[in-house]
């Protein structure tokens, strides 16, 4: 790999003070509010349009001792949610003014129950997120988003105007366009950015105002498009499964010779893939709710083929030679989909490595050994 991208230094600087990053600190110093959202089905634009900074609630991007969280949520709650809770209990999210989640999985909704009971923030909201993508489901979800908007307005005594919503959509869509451009660069034989670096970029994006992130992304895409840098690996890999925002994990895979060219993660493409319809004839709340429900589906959604087909398309578009599925223990949606997805991938001739992990786990020990063996298997296939 050639020299590092300069923009990545900015990214690293932002991430170095996670979760209370410098951009968040600067925002709060202006007397403005910050709300954490959990899960990609929460329409951030509504929060943004209220003049509040939405940030994504994540755990630490390294494996934590979850002693405090374990006292509040049973050990069969996935370690992603317990890691988030651990940071809350350690007062690292004390700067928050509110919390919003969706009924996207048992762990997420129960975290909301715990959050509410112990009053971690005075504003707590949970949206019913349908699993189906039918017209009826869209209407249900539109009402939920509308209700969320109303609650936010009432609680924080703000008005969210249609103009503000359209502006928020514009900002967020720009972010998505830039991420599409960045990912497009990864389709080349020797992409200018590694999988681990892309994760660093996405991590920063959840901890800063979106316009600032867009500016950073503009610079990054421009710099990466210059053709000065080439990241090489022996095999083109996709990383998919449960929430993962740990660049070290991906870096370990890439150091062994894998090249992560695309992901299918809620901390990756499932977060940003679809754009919101900006047709001025469409009510912005309706446009938003439709986008969020129709976005690249989480394994929770029905029918599962919607997700499987998109995964297979990514495999084709990015010329993926092997898939590493990392499944956080007790991530039940992924666990149920995995036997079905694996069979579909293998039918297409794409080998799958399944790794049962804890959130934030480093790519060392058994993980390293298994990845090595997987890469050897891919090597063997090439030799045949």
């Amino acid at each position, binding site marked *: 790999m050639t020299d590092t991208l300069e923009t990545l230094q900015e990214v690293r600087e932002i991430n170095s003070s996670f979760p209370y990053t410098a951009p968040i600190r600067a925002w709060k110093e202006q007397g403005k509010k910050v709300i954490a959202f959990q899960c990609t089905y929460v329409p951030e634009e509504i929060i943004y349009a209220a003049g509040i900074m939405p940030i994504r609630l994540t755990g630490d991007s390294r494996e934590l001792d979850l002693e405090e969280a374990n006292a509040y949520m*049973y050990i069969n*709650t996935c370690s992603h949610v317990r890691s988030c809770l651990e940071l809350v209990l350690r007062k690292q999210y004390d700067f928050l003014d509110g919390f919003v989640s969706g009924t996207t999985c048992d762990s997420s909704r129960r975290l909301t129950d715990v959050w509410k*009971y112990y009053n971690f923030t005075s504003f707590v909201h949970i949206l*019913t997120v349908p*699993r189906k993508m039918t017209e*009826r489901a869209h209407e249900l979800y539109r009402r939920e988003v509308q209700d969320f908007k109303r609650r936010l307005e009432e609680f924080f005594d703000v008005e969210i105007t249609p103009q503000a919503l359209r502006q928020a959509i514009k900002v967020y869509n720009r972010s998505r366009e830039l991420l599409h451009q960045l990912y497009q660069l990864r389709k080349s034989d020797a992409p200018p950015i590694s999988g681990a670096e892309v994760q660093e970029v996405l991590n920063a994006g959840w901890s800063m105002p979106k316009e600032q992130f867009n500016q950073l992304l503009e610079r990054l895409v421009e710099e990466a498009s210059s053709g000065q840098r080439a990241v090489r690996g022996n095999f083109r890999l996709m990383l998919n499964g449960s929430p993962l925002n740990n660049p070290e994990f991906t870096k370990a895979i890439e150091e062994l010779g894998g090249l992560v060219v695309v992901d299918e993660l809620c901390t990756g493409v499932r977060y940003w893939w679809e754009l919101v319809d900006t047709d001025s004839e469409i009510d912005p709340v309706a446009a938003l709710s439709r986008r969020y429900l129709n976005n690249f589906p989480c394994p929770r959604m029905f029918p599962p083929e919607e997700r499987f087909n998109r995964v297979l398309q990514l495999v084709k578009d990015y010329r993926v030679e092997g898939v590493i599925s990392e499944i956080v223990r007790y991530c039940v949606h992924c*666990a149920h989909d995995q036997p079905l997805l694996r069979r579909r991938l293998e039918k297409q001739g794409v080998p799958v490595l399944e790794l049962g992990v804890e959130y934030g786990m480093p790519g060392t020990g058994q993980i390293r050994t298994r990845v090595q063996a997987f890469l050897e298997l891919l090597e063997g296939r090439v030799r045949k």
Partner: protein
Amino acid sequence: MKVEARDTTKLGELIQGLELGVQFEKSRPDRRSDAVCYELLADYFRKAQKAKEEGKYLVCHTTTIPPEVFYAMDIVPLQLESVGTLASQIVRNFGDALSAARDFGLAPEVCSAHRLLVGQTILGWLPRPDAIVWSNQVCDNTAKGGNLLVELCGCPGFFLERPYHYTDGAVQYFAQELEELIHFLEKLTGRKMDWDRFAEVMDRSRCLMELHREIRQLRKAVPSPWRNLWYIHMMGTELYMAGTPEAVLHFETIRDEVKKRAEKGEGYIPEERYRILTLFLPPAYTWTLLGWMERKHGAVSVAEPYFSYRDGGEIDPTKPLESLARKSFYCPICRPMYGPAEEGILHDAVRDAVEYKAEGTIYFAHIGCRQTDACIRILRDALLEKAGIPTLILDMDLYDPTYAPEDQLKNKLEEFFELLDERK
């Protein structure tokens, strides 16, 4: 992967076991309701076993799908978890099924109830269904499990979706989902729904609900006229057979037994020592634990908030689908398991602890049940702060005895009873 071979011998063994239970309980005058319960269960499984040869449609479904729809359409339903639960009680063959699920690729963290039913399907222990229906009313496992089953059985499936919050809009959504389920079943069977018959089924469902509430009131008596195991029996009957005359008969039999004792001021056991609030379910491999608690320690389960509460909703015969939808929001299991804790299980548990004069709580913490277990801490704190009672958390697996052997559970229970003695 599609499972072709079927060997329902295990289902036959299950029916035989239940038939033996009927004979045994019939010889004991004080166990009439148990005999009724086992008889109707044996009949339930017999109907599933013989559905094909009798030319009936068989629809397998996961827990909390309202069975009234199937009975109204003369479809034989089979609740899949019921087979696993009873099989681990009577046939004790869960090990093979869990291994089959593991070999298929289902992670061990998936709830054992669902691994068991996938394993049973892979091994061909269940008759081949004409369709599978599942829903999100309990947890992520129930919401996801159907996809695998449909693929394994090679049959059509229907996913029934219920919104999280209990609002009029959500009830309408769920009623429309039920309507769509009916269309799906009409297409499957080539028969139209008989709405008059549906009204009759719903009327029996109303009777069941009223009996449930009547029993709930009778259980407030001190000493408790209640037998600990009955809540599991009632739960099974309601989940598998709501809307049938047999279910009404079962509830009436229990009501009569409870009423007789309550009116005489008698408890089910001679000496009541501890009044217990029971949260969730004891392991299916050792329900006898509940009898042991009664007989050896005088510990009576006075309320089970996950199962024994009935909200104030009513069944309106002029709006059968809306009534069924509404019922699904407030009926046992559905309300406490899929809905906000604050207005659901937390509220219900504290209210029951106070109203039923509970002295302690036993929480059966099934390692596979992420969503109920995630409430343990808030429930423990709320029960201590608002009802002044301690909680014992018993770690276990619903189906796998190797996780927590019976003796270990008994030891922990005995320590808890000592603690309750010290508090007196």
